[in-house]
């Protein structure tokens, strides 16, 4: 009884505290201008879509969403294309210096962005990547590779090796084995890595702020961070834009909770 009471209390508190703050943004996004500016604040909105309209049309939300889709989408595809073979080789094949490579990747995942920001900026300046969306994709790929490789490698390692060995005995090379045998089996792991890379690229702010400086190129986080009104802070539009930026992620989490949980923990504790 004691235990059941504790559990219910724990569920209610954690879920409540997790959801309540964002709920306030959600409520505000459906208010009218007068309701947002009311002092004391009002609880319930009268249900206006005005803020969504003006966020979309007056505050470049269309541009931000489009840029974020392009950047996050390309990052995910490119990072997976590079990470899958690397993770397979590190998990299954004889790669000289394997431990060293894994250790270096782990170190890279701990880099503070500041430590590489200046040189990355200069590098992109030199190759003409500043103010281009592809210029943002390159560092994103580099920074998400460690996570993707660690997760994928740990998934690959958990697959039974017999099928692969059979394929090898039948004369398949490593590439054929990876493509025909391992990839289909590892689909959930690949899906997990893709989700985590996608969330990273969708949410990243620091490099996006440095590399894309024109308003029409900026991604959602930069757009939301630099949200400005002429005289006062447009909280209603900001709330609407934030809901738009967050909705895809909430959907992803609701639908893929199982994979995210296993992916984050597999990448770490189960190693």
């Amino acid at each position, binding site marked *: 009884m004691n235990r059941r009471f504790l559990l219910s209390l724990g569920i209610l508190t954690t879920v409540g505290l997790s959801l309540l703050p964002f709920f306030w943004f959600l409520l505000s996004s459906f208010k009218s201008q007068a309701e947002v500016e009311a002092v004391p604040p009002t609880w319930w909105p009268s249900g206006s879509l005005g803020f969504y309209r003006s966020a979309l049309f007056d505050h470049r939300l269309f541009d931000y969403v489009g840029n974020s889709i392009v950047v996050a989408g390309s990052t995910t595809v490119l990072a997976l294309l590079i990470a899958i073979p690397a993770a397979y080789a590190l998990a299954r094949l004889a790669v000289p210096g394997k431990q060293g490579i894994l250790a270096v990747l782990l170190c890279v995942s701990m880099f503070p962005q500041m430590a590489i920001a200046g040189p990355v900026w200069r*590098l992109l300046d030199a190759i003409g990547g500043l103010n281009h969306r592809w210029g943002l994709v390159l560092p994103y790929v580099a920074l998400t590779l460690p996570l993707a490789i660690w997760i994928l490698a740990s998934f690959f390692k958990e697959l039974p090796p017999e099928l*692969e060995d059979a394929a090898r005995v039948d004369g398949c090379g490593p590439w054929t084995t990876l493509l025909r045998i391992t990839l289909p089996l590892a689909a959930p792991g690949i899906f997990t890595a893709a989700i985590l890379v996608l969330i990273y690229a969708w949410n990243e702010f620091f490099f996006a702020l440095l590399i894309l400086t024109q308003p029409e190129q900026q991604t959602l986080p930069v757009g939301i961070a630099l949200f400005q009104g002429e005289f006062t802070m447009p909280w209603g539009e900001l709330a609407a834009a934030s809901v738009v930026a967050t909705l895809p992620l909430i959907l992803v989490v609701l639908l893929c909770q199982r994979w995210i949980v296993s992916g984050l923990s597999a990448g770490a504790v189960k190693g």
Partner: protein
Amino acid sequence: MTGSSRLTRHRDGPAAWMMVAPALFVTLVFALYPVLDSLWLSLHHIFVGVPTLGRPFIGLDNYLALLLDPAAHQALFVTFAFVVLSTLLELACGLVIALVIHEHFRGRGLVRAAILIPWAIPTVVASQLWRYIFNDQYGFANLLLFGDRITQYVPWLAYPTVAFGIIVLADVWKTSSFAALLMLAGLQVIPDDLYDAAKVDGANLWQRFRHITLPLLKPAMLLALLFRTMDAFRVFDLVFVMTQGGPGDATQVLQFYGYQTLFTEGRLGYGSAVSVTVFLMILSLSLVYLRAIGSSLLERGRA
């Protein structure tokens, strides 16, 4: 070992290298080279946009200046305070969340998803959200505490200590679920019979937690501590959006200080010294942790 013969493995050589090469190339060009470049730049006197000054090599002068820079001391102090407070709170909250979502109950999947939502929300959105909640007039915090007694409304983010506390709060809200997931993985590998045996011996809920869960969860907790410390050291978005380092310099963290010296003031040499220092601190911290975890991470990387 995968069971392939030594001969097959030897033949894999070129293919294996081809598979790893692109990843190594990207990492080398966009992560390792930049760190070394930062190190090199930090030994020079460079101002962006003032090419007439040249870029004289000045050895460790930037680091000496950093040692004597009161703004850097403040940033270091704020960063340390932030790291300690937020990671400890995240570990505590994460443990509670992990214990809750480890239990079996109806709708557990939905509860897990709900708890993950703050983690998935872009940090920038979370920052604006908390800034709005603690707004001096339209804020939820004022509404909740004072209702319609408007005269008592508080401009929370205008007070140095409170602003710092709010940054910590926002970080704890956003990332406790991540710490929880790491600890959940740790809970899942504790065998059930340990608890059953303890129950037979008459241990109560607290005793079982104290003598079974906590000690066996230690590796996972250390890992969560490691990841959260690294991340807390790198805090930037929260400060950029919510306070810009203020009021005064109460929330001036190292990353924000480095960003300002590098990109706002264009002191490329000095800013690089700041970022290299942050990098070295994180690196040494992670070495300490990895030692404590017993390098189990890398050992498990062995196929």
